[in-house]
């Protein structure tokens, strides 16, 4: 059996083996509880190497990225919830690794989306919210405060006031389709993280999401 260290790094990345070890442990050695894990390929985007409990993260226009982050928390094991339509694709969720028994969705909260989100933040580790277009700043601030209070992570698929880290996909290339043949196989995206405080300098990383075997892995095109 070949030892993983003996194989070239780019080969490993191509087949989906991440070469980053560990996720979610803070530099001063605090145990894992305060930080929820993220896929190892994305850890460099987050201060602390993961989703800090109590923080609010925005992900703009990339449901796959939301699913990848949710999956890592769900596998930990953890409970995740989603509020607001449209619901993320369940088949894609399963492929990303989300455990559907622990992923509860509320499709159409209507006017009460803020109350519903607040109730879910009481108990769930991670709450994904699709805010309505007319979401008020007061609601946003209150929900972020509630997340901080209850040590839950609020993941917003959209725009949000005062988020700690904002992820966006700046470039994406699908592979696998030719001119009338093939099928979508894998996609390389460049994810950018912008934030406040220690995340103020934008970080970028190129990952395969989904990679050849469905997982999130680092692309060898990353500098250094």
């Amino acid at each position: 059996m070949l030892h993983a260290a003996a194989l070239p790094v780019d080969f490993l990345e191509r087949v989906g083996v991440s070469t980053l070890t560990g996720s979610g442990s803070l530099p001063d050695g605090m145990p894992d509880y305060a930080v929820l894990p993220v896929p190892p390929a994305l850890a460099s985007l987050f201060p602390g190497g993961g989703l800090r409990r109590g923080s609010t993260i925005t992900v703009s226009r990339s449901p796959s990225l939301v699913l990848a982050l949710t999956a890592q928390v769900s596998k930990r094991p953890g409970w995740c919830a989603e509020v607001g339509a449209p619901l993320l694709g369940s088949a894609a969720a399963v492929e990303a690794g989300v455990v559907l028994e622990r992923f509860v969705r509320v499709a159409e909260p209507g006017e009460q989306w803020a109350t519903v989100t607040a109730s879910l933040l009481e108990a769930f580790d991670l709450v994904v919210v699709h805010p309505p277009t007319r979401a008020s700043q007061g609601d946003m601030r209150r929900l972020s405060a509630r997340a901080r209070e209850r040590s839950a992570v609020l993941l917003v698929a959209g725009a949000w006031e005062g988020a700690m880290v904002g992820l966006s996909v700046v470039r994406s290339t699908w592979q696998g389709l030719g001119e009338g043949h093939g099928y979508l196989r894998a996609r390389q995206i460049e994810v950018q993280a912008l934030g406040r405080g220690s995340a103020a300098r934008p970080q970028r990383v190129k990952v395969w999401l989904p990679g050849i075997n469905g997982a999130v892995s680092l692309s060898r095109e990353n500098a250094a």
Partner: protein
Amino acid sequence: MTNNRAVRTLNNRAVRTLAVWCPDWPVIAAGGSAELPGAVFAGGRVFACSAVARLEGVRRGQRRRDAQSRCPELAVYLHDPSRDTRLFEPVAESVEELVPGIEIVRPGLIVVAARGAARYYKGELPMLAKISTTVADETGRDVQLGLADGSFAATQAAYLAQVVPAGDAANFLAPLGIQALERPELADLLMRLGVHTLGGFAALPRSDVLARFGPDAAYAHDLAHGLEARPPSARSAPPDLAVEMALDPPIDRVDTATFVAKTLAEQLDERLAARGLACIRISIEARTSNGEQLARSWRHGGISTAGFSASAIADRTRWQLDGWLSGTIRSDDGRPTGGMVFLRLIPDEVVADVGRQLSLWGSAAGWGSATAGSATAWGGDASAGGADIEQIERALARVQGLLGPDAVVTAIVGGGRELADQVRLVPWGEPREVLPGDSCPWPGRLPSPSPATVLSGLRSASVTAADGSPVEVNGRLAVSAPLRWLRVEQREPVEIAGWAGPWPLDTRWWDHAAARCRARFQLTTVDGSGWLVAFDNDRWLVEAVYD
């Protein structure tokens, strides 16, 4: 040490208690009998079995295959607490007529304070005789009775059909095994330390038990001494803790009752939690539109320092309402006709909620209220680190109260060719059933990776060739021209970078109304997004977006 025990006896003066027990009630309620081997299964494991099955080696907690291998003629029943409660109602009613103030611990076990009734019937033995003959006459069920100081000793006495003289509870309990305490981890530990009987446990110094095993074990130690099976901090609840609801329109169906039970239980739990209390005895009262008043008390578990959780209260309310609504109440009263118009839950006895000890790091170590087990029936992983399944249930019950029970769902991905068919949404609280087609191969399905956004209403699009003419797919799946431009609804047309297809989807050709015949394509555009589009009857639709 003897002095301390005497002082404690004075403080926890045990009440003369009668326990009425129907052996193996879940099996009897399911339709089995004591003479035939039968077992009730819950969650794939034995929940209760008849005496004959026990002789053959069937035990609680065994897996079904294991039980059937020991007893091939075992009759198998599924656990249904509503049915157990409903069929136990006549027995409860019958006992209540003779001795008022009964408390149901679980279907099959009733405890009631017996001093007054004993005086009324001029002796304990005449009272017992009267009860067993009346219950047998009126309901045809055989019951075993036990009489002792305190409900724990009385329950143990009922298992052995004995009357324990007053003050003799400790001696009666001494030879019984540690399993009677119903604390498996503690029992396991004590057995490995060489303590096999309640007497042996009682002989240990209480302060050492408290220091080594904690307050719950100290409470169990008191029980082993025959002291009152009521947690020391139990007291009556202040009257404003009761919750009630006027039901309009009247409820006469069990599923509406479930929803109401959940809402009320949630409210009660919140009120109790706000005061730091947990309930160990609850009274459920209802009034029908004909003016009948129905009431029943339920006691928590028998012996525990914890109280009912919200889901446990909701379960018992639901079982009780089910029992009344579909009930086999005796013919002269008849079923409650007209439906229920009023429901009230009263926490009769409360204890200070020990609460949840949050450790400095790591997840909350559960301490206080015990769950009723309905969570694991839903497939939830009750040991998930961080989130506590009870808090989850509470939060979801609140959301369901706001939006309705169908608003909170989990998904099951199963069989089907179309993206929409593959996903079934199951409301929270209902069982996640796996259908037979889920694990079969489905030719014609899209390969993974699946799209992250599946559009529920198909959006119209137009796909044109390089010269601007719309692309068509004929019946032989030949594309009229290579796909070049994609325009979704009213947006700008985008150039197509790559495409594949057509992949035909031809379903339900035998059903004219539901037939779907479509050619699917995957395509990527120059801006890097991926699309799943379909050509259906001269028009193009966007089914999903790979984003």
